[in-house]
């Protein structure tokens, strides 16, 4: 029997809340966090709808419990806030003898400061303390040092599936016996760098995004961080933590199709979902809900929808994209949506796909339109697909008390 892996803690910050409780409240009230850009001085500021965490740098320092200092990016502060909530919840400070790892994910890294100070980097020494905080490892190492995690520390970047791959690697490291427990997730802050990059690709919606809608018009980028504590059964035996759920399946596949577009038939998405389902040992009909990647682009939603049809056939589970709540938090999306999926298992609810009005003509199904409560939810699938065709799916199962 392969080792079972349980989730025993989580932490999140997003545009709909600074912690788990606030995110849950917003979701239960079907309250979106999307709005205009306020904290980044971009020329696109008045044109975009984004999922921005409504806090400035000083407020984030305060929330992170850190005295404001140079060398911190917005990204690393978001990461620290969410990682610490999960760390406390999963009581990682106890039982230091257990082998503990930190696997984080980011793609823009400390670019939010780098893009402000780049001209100084090139010409003078005034912003030297930010040079080291530009890369992807910086936020991860700041979290590792703050929380004292050192047995295994790494950073993954597979664009928008990054944090799902963190969770997947965390589960595999525990299953192999290399680690007993892992803090896994990702962080990403909004930057001019990727707002403009996505804008240049012409895939941003100027209005609130409408995933899986016939008239969908693109992405609203978001920001945030989310981390989960993964533990083996043996580890739980020592920590006494209560499992929130089990992560029972994971699958990673590559489209090998195009650097930024999904294949029309969603080969990568299909393979990732199939691998995750097979590994979980569940039949397709056992999946009650899919938290879709559902970015709101023409390309993704059709491709993902077709892959879902191919895998689930006539019995398509309830599907929704929660990106109209949080925006697309790119490298943090995998762990953000993993947590939102787990909240469905815990609260026996299904999150609505906000802003939906008309089914995609090529698809046989529509997403869930309104919040559903008091419904049995025993297994959920969370999809995260990225540029480069890096597709990852995760399956979470409710733990029934024996």
């Amino acid at each position: 029997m392969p080792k079972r892996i349980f989730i025993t803690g989580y932490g999140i910050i997003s545009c709909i809340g600074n912690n788990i409780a606030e995110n849950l409240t917003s979701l239960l009230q079907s309250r979106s966090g999307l709005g205009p850009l306020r904290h980044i001085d971009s020329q696109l500021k008045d044109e975009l709808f984004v999922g921005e965490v409504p806090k400035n740098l000083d407020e984030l320092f305060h929330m992170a419990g850190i005295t404001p200092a140079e060398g911190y990016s917005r990204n690393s502060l978001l990461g620290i806030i969410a990682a610490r909530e999960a760390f406390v919840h999963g009581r990682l400070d106890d039982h230091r003898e257990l082998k503990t790892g930190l696997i984080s994910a980011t793609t823009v890294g400390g670019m939010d400061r780098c893009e402000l100070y780049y001209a100084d980097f090139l010409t003078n020494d005034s912003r030297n303390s930010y040079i080291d905080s530009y890369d992807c490892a910086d936020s991860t190492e700041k979290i590792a040092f703050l929380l004292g995690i050192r047995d295994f520390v790494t950073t993954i970047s597979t664009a928008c599936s990054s944090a799902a791959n963190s969770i997947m690697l965390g589960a595999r490291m525990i299953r192999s016996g290399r680690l007993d427990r892992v803090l896994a997730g990702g962080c990403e802050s909004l930057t001019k760098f990727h707002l403009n990059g996505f804008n240049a690709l012409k895939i941003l919606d100027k209005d609130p995004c409408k995933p899986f809608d016939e008239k969908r018009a693109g992405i609203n980028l978001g920001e945030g961080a989310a981390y989960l504590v993964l533990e083996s059964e043996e580890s739980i035996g020592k920590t006494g933590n209560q499992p929130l759920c089990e992560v029972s399946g994971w699958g990673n596949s590559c489209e090998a199709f195009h650097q930024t577009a999904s294949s029309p038939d969603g080969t990568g998405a299909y393979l990732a979902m199939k691998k995750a389902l097979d590994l979980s040992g569940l039949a397709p009909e056992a999946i009650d809900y899919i938290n879709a990647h559902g970015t709101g682009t023409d390309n993704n939603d059709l491709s993902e929808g077709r892959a879902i049809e191919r895998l689930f056939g006539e019995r398509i589970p309830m599907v929704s994209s929660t990106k109209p709540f949080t925006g697309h938090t790119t490298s943090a999306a995998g762990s953000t949506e993993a947590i939102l999926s787990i909240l469905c298992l815990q609260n026996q609810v299904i999150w609505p796909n906000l802003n939906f009005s008309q089914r995609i003509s090529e698809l046989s199904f529509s997403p869930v339109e309104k919040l559903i409560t008091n419904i049995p939810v025993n297994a959920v699938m969370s999809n995260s697909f990225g540029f480069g065709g890096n597709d990852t799916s995760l399956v979470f199962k409710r733990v029934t008390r024996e």
Partner: protein
Amino acid sequence: MAFLNGIGLISPQRTAETNEFLSEIVEYTADYLKCIEPVYRNYIDPIQSRRMSRLIKMGITAAKMSVTQANLAMPDAIITGTGLGSVEDTEKILGDLTKEERFLNPTPFIQSTYNTISSQVAIQLKCHNYNSTYVHRTFSFESGLIDGLLQMEEQSASNVLIGAIDEMTMNHLLITRRIGQWKMHPVSNMKLREDQTPGALAGEGAAFFVLGSGKSESTYAEIKDVKTWIRMNCEPDAGTILSHFLGNHDLKATDIDLVLMGTNGDLNYDPVYEQFADQFFPGKPLAWYKHLCGEYHTATGFGLYIAANLLKRQTYPEILHLNHAAPSRLKNILIYNHFRNVDHSFILVQEA
């Protein structure tokens, strides 16, 4: 079991398109060591490569060299380690952003995304299998190796393609010189240890390795294990980590025939290697390689190329010697690396 069955390496030395091993050393007196690049049209369709930046071309080419050598058509996983991804593309965007935001060219943005190399290799090989990218400073390649070893253990893969790739640019050198990472002046790579100043000699490289569960004619060596750890002011220390690491394979420090160290000419940080060797491997043969490739986040890729060739060829060229001790036979090589005494790693390579 993870056998190293193919290597493709583009580096500042003549390591690509040759069967020779360090037979002719390229000497430089330079700010940083630049890769000797092959003719890309022999590996990538020129129509496709026209818009590819240098790092992507180097990555795809190194990957193709390694699968050809291993005679592998379809890897079960493609994993890349890169500390910084395409610096050239990132700089282009940052330069543009300081002027006008709106009219950004999307191509550098797409290519600046770290997973572009793994993804482009997958497109070239039409490979739908597992695909990932690690971006953690000097753990980038080591994390990829650990992922690859896991794939083998899980039996979800019998052949894994793993890359170690980073580039340097003049702008990036100038920026990171400000925080003491590099020599402030051009140095001779052949006289690096005589320079005796703070800062390393910067370099770059693109390496891909094929790890296979079976031994073949092209096998160089076996990768036994990889360990990364962050040094904090708490237990356990390097010695405890070393003895656990070796002990997991029923080895002791005395079983190591050669320690291949990441010595890079930095007066501030080379003593960490010297103390490590004095404390745990007194009298043992010690070697280095970063005078040949320069320092970069995934330089242990070059180190693994060296270790693999030493084991396969059972030679020990003088250019690598850090002391006068000579191994009688090479069976176990320990690659030890650290970055500014924070991120430390071991790679244990064994004769196959």
